[in-house]
């Protein structure tokens, strides 16, 4: 059962942060995580502050060096926007893999990050872009690197009364492509057992100009695979895929639970890392070369 609560629909950010600061309030946009938790009795806020009607938080804005995803932007909107942008495909593919069409029509990318479950699909993709989050409270606003936002399972760096206004991605260099690979039991409507996001830049000779890999569901928070920058200059080859897969598998820290065993998850990190890199290369019109 849902305990009674006051429901606010502020029209402006200033009003929203006031409400958030005033009492035991919880913010919702799509509500697809919060309302479920309320129904289960895991959350019982005195007030819900619904920010989905705040114009300033809607949509996706492209700036010269950045892309800004508003806190009210839905997965569906992100899918539509990134549809033909290979460098942002990881975002589109991750958003497209969340829940069902009904969920994607109301659930937001920012909400996916704020819920901060290790299996959240948008965590790793957002990390690919050296992103930062714009946070605001009644006391003002601040920028926080996305990598510092996630502090543990279901834990974020948000302070009491603070909200996410937007996600600010750094536009990748020209000639990059990204991808998101997710593994679950079925073909759709699954939580990620493992999720791997990758972004690759290749020059005309298929040499790597940039390489970033992020992992979901295999650590307490989404993580970036360390050491990828050292692979810049190498040719996109099967042995490079193997090396990346090994690095990712070594760095992840999966757990065993009823959804999957830790070793299987680690194995899948390797498999999905290769697949994500292959898909990036394919989007760039390049083949992964045989070695030797």
């Amino acid at each position, binding site marked *: 059962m849902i305990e009674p609560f006051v429901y606010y629909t502020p029209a402006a950010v200033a009003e929203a942060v006031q409400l958030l600061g005033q009492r035991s309030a919880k913010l919702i946009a799509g509500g697809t995580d919060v309302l479920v938790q309320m129904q289960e009795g895991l959350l019982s806020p005195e007030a819900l502050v619904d920010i989905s009607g705040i114009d300033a938080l809607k949509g996706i804005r492209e700036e010269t060096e950045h892309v800004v995803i508003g806190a009210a932007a839905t997965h569906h909107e992100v899918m539509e926007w990134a549809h033909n942008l290979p460098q942002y495909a990881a975002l589109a593919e991750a958003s497209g893999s969340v829940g069902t069409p009904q969920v994607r029509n109301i659930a937001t990318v920012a909400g996916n990050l704020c819920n901060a479950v290790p299996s959240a699909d948008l965590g790793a993709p957002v990390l690919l872009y050296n992103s930062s989050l714009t946070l605001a409270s009644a006391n003002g606003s601040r920028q926080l690197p996305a990598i510092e936002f996630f502090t543990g399972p279901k834990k974020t760096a948000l302070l009491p009364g603070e909200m996410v206004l937007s996600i600010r991605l750094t536009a990748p260099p020209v000639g990059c492509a990204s991808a998101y690979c997710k593994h679950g039991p*079925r*073909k759709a409507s*699954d*939580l990620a057992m493992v999720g791997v996001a990758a972004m690759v830049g290749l020059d005309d000779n298929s040499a790597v100009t940039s390489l970033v890999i992020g992992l979901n569901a295999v650590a307490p928070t989404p993580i970036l695979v360390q050491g990828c920058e050292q692979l810049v200059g190498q040719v996109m080859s099967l042995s490079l895929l193997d090396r990346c897969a090994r690095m990712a598998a070594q760095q992840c820290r999966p757990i065993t639970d*009823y959804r999957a*065993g830790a070793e299987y998850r680690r194995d899948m990190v390797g498999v999905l890392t290769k697949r994500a890199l292959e898909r990036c290369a394919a989007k760039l019109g390049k083949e992964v070369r045989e070695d030797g």
Partner: protein
Amino acid sequence: MTKIHAAIVADTDQGVVGQSVPMVDACEKVTGKAIYGADVEMPGMLYGRVLRSPHPHAKILSIDAAEAQRLPGVRAVVTWADTSGELIGFSQYSDHYIFAKDEVRFVGDEVAAVAAVDEDTAHRALKLIKVEYEVLPAVYTLDEAMAPGAPLVHDVTPENIAHQITYSRGDVDAAFAKCDVILEETFETSPAHPAYIEPQACLAAFDAYGNADIYANTQSPGGSIREKTAQVLGLPLGKVRIHQTFLGGGFGGKVWQHIIPATAVLARKAGRPVKMMYSRREDLACTPSRVPMRMKLKMGADRTGRILAKETLVLADNGAYCINSPIVIDTAATRIENLYRFENIRTTAKLIYTNKVSTGTFRGFGNPQGTFMVESMMDMLAKELAMDPAQIRIVNAVHPGYVTAHGWKINSCELEQCIHEVKRISGWEEKRKANRFGYGIGMSCVIHVNGNRSCFPAFDGSTAYISMNESGEAMVMCAEGDLGQGASTVFAQIAAQEIGLPMESVRVLRVDTEYAGFAFGAFASRITVNGGNAVRHAAAAVRRALLETAAGMRGGDVDTFTIHQGIVTDGTGWSATVAEVSLQYIYAHAGTNLRCDGFFIPPDVVIADKVTKYGNISCAYSFAAHVAEVEVDKDTGKVEVLNYYAVHDAGKLINPMLAEGQIEGGVAQGIGFALYENYCYGTDGHMLNNSFLDYKLPTFKDVPKITTGFAQGCDPVGPMGAKGLGEPTIVPVASAIGNALADALGERITQMPFTAEKVKGVVRRVMAQAAKEGQA
């Protein structure tokens, strides 16, 4: 609306049986007018909720509901003390109460219930009931429960053995000695929930005279749960009235519903109508699953593939209480032994209590479990003998006139035709040549009953009546009811055809036990043959009476009259509508509608012997052969069912479209059973995946194109030659997929479900072995 109606009346000149007419209740369903369990409301209605045990096994020391009763809005709190206090359960296996008396035996066991003015108040009240428990040691697995000195789930049941059968036929040892090949393997099936889309729901009210009036989404309105409800209430059966609402699926899970007596007990105490609806979590964790089994099988054959001997040990996890599970394990052990010409068999089956949710009936009634074991073994033997898996099945198949090891008299049987046809439509011969690691094709067959004489010793069969109203509409009441599978449509087609009416002149009434006869309801794939024949007999009597009435109106020999499309004629140019004749009948009988009863008693059936399980339990048997094609993702282990083919012998079809729908639904459900569905428990006996987030049903992306086919056949007993089709559709699916997977991997997974993680383990092993051999 108009369009749907137009479709219903289309092209019935050749008679309506055998035509794909849309479901007669399609309009109600698609317009949202159908009343399902959760839709029923009554003035002054309260809401009920159940307090459940948080412990897998504990003594109840005390229950203090005083504070809950004081909460404003609470109208009643009930416990065991508010019931008749009698043990309920499956016949001699009665082992539980509707609310625990002094001991709880699984997490979710019913302890008490509350009725309040709204759901939130009821929910709050549950938290105020103080139950003092003394936690007892619990057993969760077969091995734990069977270990020497294991804690007992029920003190009175030694070794936790709820039920056991042992029987043999022929000379098993001599037959094994003659075998050219003998294989042994242990197979395990997982629990699975029927996972009907509509959770269980019930509304109960009492009239001023103490009669219970109940609305429930039950698939067995007149059956055992009505009897149990009367027992729990301490009322004679006639004082318990059940109305069957529309059902959002049942699949065996709505045969036996504790929610019905629990709601009735609440309503009686509260003195007001009470509605109870389970949450999905409650439904998944606290209502019976399919009985999971571990089956050790030894089978031997001669060089030609003829099976000579079979020895089986079946161990089944009963959970806390017996909910039809004794017949489920009997079915798992015996049914498959009638698919082939087994002559020498020795079987022991034991049903073991554990401190988990009770297990029971789910589409197939134990047959999917037994079929998984034997149909996997058939492929293993075929491989050992270098035979085509289709051929070894043909070599052993039963045929019309054959009497099986269990005394089953095989009447109509197109099993061989099904195998040949499924080979043809699947491209079996060609595809089997692929021989590519990761791709596989597999077959499985099935035999299933059309009703089981052993389920209810008092009688078997079905009853129906048809009443002709003033407008010449046939109002059909068959006490069996409709659980969404299309029984009403089948009944309507049979009645229309038999009387000579267009489809739109037939109405099938929803079951109300006050006006319907006595019936068991929808299980054991019994409705088409049993209910259908009862309707047919009633319809034949109505036709005769209409003809006689017409002959009385017109004068002349009744045999010269006929009815077609609702018009009665005598061949001389005279005609009258059935409406005119029906009205004439009413006038001539002081207002009495023309009403005829029909009943059907299955011929030549017996209750299987309690010990030996011998006896012909059904008057007709249905058959099928299925083929699955799978592709394994060698990196992840994920299995994709590429194509699925199913050819059934359901006799002459009443409605081909509904028949196809049954097959598609059964196959989809079987894919879930084979690949995804399982119960995950925490160390404390709590179910961890009791929501659709983690209890994985296949989505329609996971279900491939299903190609259906039907053998040309005609059953001598079934109505207009038809046989049942509800359960056989799911029975062979897991084994067909398992066999395809074994073909794809070269190694067999004997433990369901075939999850990606499990398959990946096999892929890794097989590839490592191949690499080693490559080096050597």
